[in-house]
């Protein structure tokens, strides 16, 4: 018989007590710090950008037509300047990726077939975006003159073949890293912070005092609740700081909950195996490494075999689901498998935990 009031009493004690333990604090704060660090270090944007400055004595449609030829390949920003010298200066300073000097009456002259002079200025070291936009000027001018292009050339940036494309290319390094850090955070809470709290109870023999009035399952349930609450607080804090809002909240929450419950099973199992919390703190890293590693392997575009191995770990499956939920895209086709992987590991963990508890009670 499990009594909720006993579980809550132990949980309240643990919540206050554990936060005063430096080892637990480290387990909570390190992954948060890593997530924030990744967030600040990595950029989301993968589309190249180009700033085009131009001087035109009269209104011209040239920028608008160039934009239509460039399409989505380059994110282009036009900026009109008062005179030619200022355009030259900005390009020379590499403050702009391209400069255009458009003479007076350019659009009309082009339309009349008079071949007016258009000056295109490139900076000393032209970027890909700069060259791409420069290449679009000629077809744009032809279009202004009313010439039908000999062929309609559609420029597409062809996606890499699945073998070569990485998830990072699709979601961006920042999102990938923060999702991996989320998995790391859950792993450290479940397999380091919570086991430390449990092992300390054994080490200091406070567990003996609890067992006088509560049962082992009640103690275990209280520790699991502590882990779930730590996750429920820390993961939103990480998302808040990194300003990442999952597109599919349901998948995100389901993944976080299932991964937490699964890893807490292993963490509590581990907590019952060590004699003292310092020993656990020291060796915990060895256990954590293979647990956290799959989170940072999934999406890197490593060989299939490695990716498959990573996917059979609950953290590998969880990372896939979190990446899927973080964007509008379906990056992985095996969502159900990932949930099943976590559930199977969770079942194994709790079966072992029940066995361990029954031995302890015997």
């Amino acid at each position, binding site marked *: 018989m499990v009594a909720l009031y006993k579980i809550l*009493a132990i949980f309240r004690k643990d919540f*206050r*007590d554990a936060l005063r*333990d430096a080892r637990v604090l480290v387990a909570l704060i390190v992954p948060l710090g890593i997530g924030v660090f990744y967030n600040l270090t990595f950029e989301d944007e993968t589309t190249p950008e180009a700033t085009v400055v131009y001087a035109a004595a009269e209104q011209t449609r040239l920028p608008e037509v160039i934009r239509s030829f460039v399409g989505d390949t380059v994110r282009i920003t036009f900026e009109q300047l008062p005179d030619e010298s200022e355009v030259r200066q900005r390009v020379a300073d590499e403050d702009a990726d391209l400069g255009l000097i458009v003479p007076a009456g350019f659009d009309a002259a082009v339309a009349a077939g008079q071949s007016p002079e258009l000056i295109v200025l490139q900076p000393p070291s032209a970027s890909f975006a700069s060259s791409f936009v420069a290449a679009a000027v000629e077809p744009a001018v032809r279009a202004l003159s009313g010439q039908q292009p000999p062929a309609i050339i559609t420029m597409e940036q062809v996606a890499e073949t699945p073998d070569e494309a990485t998830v990072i290319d699709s979601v961006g390094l920042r999102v990938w890293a923060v999702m991996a850090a989320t998995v790391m955070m859950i792993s450290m809470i479940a397999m380091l912070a919570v086991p430390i709290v449990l092992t300390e109870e054994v080490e200091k023999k406070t567990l003996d*005092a609890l067992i006088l009035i509560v049962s082992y399952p009640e103690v275990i349930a209280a520790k699991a609740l502590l882990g779930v609450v730590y996750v429920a607080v820390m993961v939103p804090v990480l998302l808040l700081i990194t300003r990442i809002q999952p597109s599919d909240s349901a998948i995100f929450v389901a993944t976080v909950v299932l991964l937490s419950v699964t890893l807490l099973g292993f963490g509590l199992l581990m907590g019952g195996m060590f004699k003292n919390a310092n020993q656990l703190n020291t060796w915990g890293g060895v256990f954590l490494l293979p647990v956290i590693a799959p989170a940072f392997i999934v999406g890197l575009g490593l060989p299939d075999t490695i990716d498959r191995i990573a996917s059979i770990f609950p953290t590998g499956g969880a990372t896939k689901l979190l990446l899927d939920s973080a964007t509008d895209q379906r990056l992985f086709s095996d969502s159900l498998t990932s949930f099943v992987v976590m559930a199977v590991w969770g079942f194994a963990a709790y079966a072992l935990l029940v066995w361990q508890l029954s031995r302890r009670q015997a």
Partner: protein
Amino acid sequence: MAAAPVIEVEGLVKRYGAVQALAGISFSVAEGEIFGFLGHNGAGKTTTIRVLTGRTKPTSGSAKVAGHDVVSDMPRIKPLINLVFEDQNLYERLTGYDNLILFADLYRQPHSRAEELLSLVGLSDAAKRRVKTYSSGMKQRLLVARALINRPRVLFLDEPTRGLDPASAREIRNIIRDMSREGTTVFLTTHSMEEADELCDRVAFLAKGRIVALDTPRELKLRYGQRTATVLLRDRREVQICLDDATDARRLAEWMEAGEVLTIHSNEGTLEDVFIALAGQPL
């Protein structure tokens, strides 16, 4: 004994692998009694407490606390008992008050009970201090307070005064005595023969997992002590006389008639003497 037994142990055996910790002990403890359990380290004292408090299962035999079997009916026993552990197993990062509040919640007692007990053990002023700043004596008093949180019917104390200075040990003994007066049954294990002699209504001597003697301290001392007395005479001579010897009785009468006797001390022995006589070596 008049009162009904609140602890009944019959043929209790406990083995840890090849090691036999308890070799079939039997005893009973009456309601409101202070029962002392004495023995060397490893004699089986703590194992007996572990069995009676449901923290380990016996290999064979039976034990009942408050009429409930410790194996099959432990959930009914748990709210009725408490234990002062041999180790000072407190939450050291929490305050004394918070330590008691946790157990008040677990035993469904009002928080005012924690304040009441802190006052009883003289820790009201230190209630809001973290336990790691407490002295050993203060921690021990807090342990006693924690064990009283549920007003236990049976209070187990495992070496409650071990390592304490005489003043702190005295305070703990006074609390134990008060609890007993209020009707709590006390099961006490100790190494201190003086403590057992002072506190216990009955004591059991445990050696190698067996009870080798069980009676009131006075009866044990009488049974195993010497029936002699030391007489100090006016001329400062000390003379040993045998209480069962008619010649010695006449000599004593003569000395007394002549006003020669300054003091007479009976040599009834101590519990320590009794233990040595039974177990072969001192505690």
